[in-house]
């Protein structure tokens, strides 16, 4: 017998992924990361502008990442809330997201501390590792909330990660992976936003 509370929970939580705005945000972050990779790849380390450019880009990246929640809230206020209403995730959901983020960072730190530090080796393996992470998260979101597009992007990112790893293309492989995965997120987000705007009309009270 299906549990009505579990069903209600899934329905409430899947509504947070319904607008597709989070996909666009992830896509932008992945593409910005690619900009950083391009500078590191093609920049001349001996040049006097190399480190200032890296630092400026990092600053820009962190400013964007830090202001992203506010930008998302503003976008949701214009697109999502007038259509399906406003809701704030419960504390359990926030705790889970934080735990996943902390565990990921902790995993990377452990890998850096105890792993063999070889830049080429890391650049080579990064698409597979992050692709696997996206795949696991995608599977979780698909099974728990019934949002299938994250699973598809996760599968795409692990397959592409394996392909560029087999190709041994190092920097170029990482750049290709970032561009394609970033574009996949942007496309998925764009289509979802378009569908959402088309299928969910603005409430009369919100006009």
């Amino acid at each position, binding site marked *: 017998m299906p549990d*009505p*509370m579990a069903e*209600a*929970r899934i*329905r*409430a*939580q899947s*509504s947070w992924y319904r607008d597709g705005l989070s996909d666009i945000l992830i896509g932008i972050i992945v593409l910005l990361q690619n900009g950083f990779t391009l500078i590191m790849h093609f920049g001349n380390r001996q040049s006097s502008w190399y480190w200032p450019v890296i630092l400026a880009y990092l600053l820009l990246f962190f400013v964007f990442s830090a202001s992203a929640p506010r930008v998302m809230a503003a976008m949701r*206020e214009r697109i999502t*809330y*007038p259509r*399906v*209403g*406003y*809701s*704030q*995730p*419960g*504390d359990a959901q926030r705790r889970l997201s934080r735990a996943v983020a902390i565990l990921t960072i902790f995993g990377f730190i452990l890998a850096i501390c105890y792993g063999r530090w070889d830049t080429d080796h890391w650049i080579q393996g990064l698409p597979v590792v992050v692709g696997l992470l996206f795949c696991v998260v995608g599977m979780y979101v698909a099974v728990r909330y019934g949002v299938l597009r994250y699973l598809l992007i996760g599968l795409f990112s692990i397959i592409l990660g394996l392909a560029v790893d087999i190709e041994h293309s190092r920097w170029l492989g990482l750049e290709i992976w970032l561009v394609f995965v970033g574009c996949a997120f942007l496309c998925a987000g764009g289509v979802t936003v378009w569908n959402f705007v088309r299928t969910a009309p603005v*409430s009369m*009270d*919100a006009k």
Partner: protein
Amino acid sequence: MSGRLRQIAHLDRVIHEPARLMIAATLYLVKEADFLYLQNQTDLTKGNLSSHLAKLEEAGYVEIEKTYRGKIPMTVCSLTKKGRASFRAYESAMRGALFESVNGAFEASR
């Protein structure tokens, strides 16, 4: 009749009403939500939702805050601590009683 099944007689009648149960269950899953979100999730009419929210507020289970998003008025609702505790108690009592009655029916059919 077992003790767990007898708990049905002591169920919280404010939450037991189906529409209010839907509202409480929806609010239990989020930190806060506005009127439109509740309407979408429960499929209740505006009048129905307002009157049931008022009853839940009267019982001290729901906190209602009237605010503005730009120029548009917004009604933000959230379950109070008392509301959350009551909903949890209601849920466990119902689960216990239903489990008992299903088990009883199964035993009787054997």
